[in-house]
């Protein structure tokens, strides 16, 4: 079998570029991340938020069930009593301190499942990277939803 320039060189090159040319018509798959975000799945679990009732009172009652359910032991809750002068939540108690170590957290959502009042929810904000270890202790002020 002899060497043929057309059959062995030109034809494979043309057919190879043909595949490339056909792919040019296909949709572009790359998400241009900082400018555009991909659509997150509805049950995506990322940054925690402590929610409020419509009245503005906090849902969290400081029961520490989230801390008990946490497999990484990254939640710390310290409860205090509500008084009529300083009322934070509808029940007897509220969380005086609520801290999450975001570096320990594995975003499993067990805290969300364990919460009896639906106070802690995991939302879709994934941009959590930071420079210092100390920046990852999220306090109650950082987690709490602003009053609408």
């Amino acid at each position, binding site marked *: 079998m002899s060497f043929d320039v057309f059959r062995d060189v030109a034809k494979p090159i043309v057919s190879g570029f043909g595949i490339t040319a056909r792919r040019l018509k296909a949709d572009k*798959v*790359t*998400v*241009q*991340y*900082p400018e555009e*975000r*991909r659509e997150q799945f509805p049950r995506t679990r*990322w940054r925690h938020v402590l929610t409020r009732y419509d009245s503005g009172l906090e849902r969290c009652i400081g029961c520490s069930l989230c801390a008990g359910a946490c*497999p*990484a*032991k990254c939640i710390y809750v310290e409860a205090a009593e509500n008084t009529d002068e300083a009322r934070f939540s509808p029940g007897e108690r509220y969380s005086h301190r609520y801290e999450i*170590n*975001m*570096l*320990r*957290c*594995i*975003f*499993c959502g067990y805290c969300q499942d364990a919460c009896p009042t639906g106070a802690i929810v995991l939302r879709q904000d*994934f*941009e*959590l*990277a*930071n*420079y*210092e*270890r100390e920046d*990852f202790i999220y306090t109650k002020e950082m987690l709490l939803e602003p009053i609408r």
Partner: protein
Amino acid sequence: MPKRVETLVLHDSSTPVIGDTEHGGAVVVTTLDTLFNQARANALWPLTFGLACCAIEMMSTVAARFDLARFGSEAFRATPRQADVMIIAGRLSKKMAPVLRQIYDQMPDPKWVISMGACASSGGVYNNYAIVQGADQVVPVDIYVPGCPPSPDALMYAVIKLQNKIKHQAMKTNKSMSILELKPRELEEVKA
């Protein structure tokens, strides 16, 4: 881990620091700094250091959907001699720690470290005898990425943030340029 004070740049207005015009550095040097930092930040070659499941997301980050090549980081190198940034992707076991340290030492300066995921950053759920509780006990970490595992866009956010950090570094010392960037708590530690 307590913060080591010797890593801070200690100076005041009377002691000129290279690359810091506000505190008496030369203009030429600061311009060179900007040039070098742009070159360094926009061609970060990561070292292939996948230790566990986070590596799957790291591979996904360089694939077509997310395409880390848009930030100049697509060239994953299998040798530390050619790498700029080490992405510690996964739990770091105590047997692996000396290996990690040796590979980090083999990387040429300037070098940076991304601690990817809960396990590499703090040990995560593996609070046991076998896992190092935070890779910063072995190597200096520049940026931490929480998540288990972090999604490709979360890692990409960290790479962009690391680029911002590199663009504000002084070329010669490889340290942050201005003491003004430090937080008040650290300043108090320096004074004490």
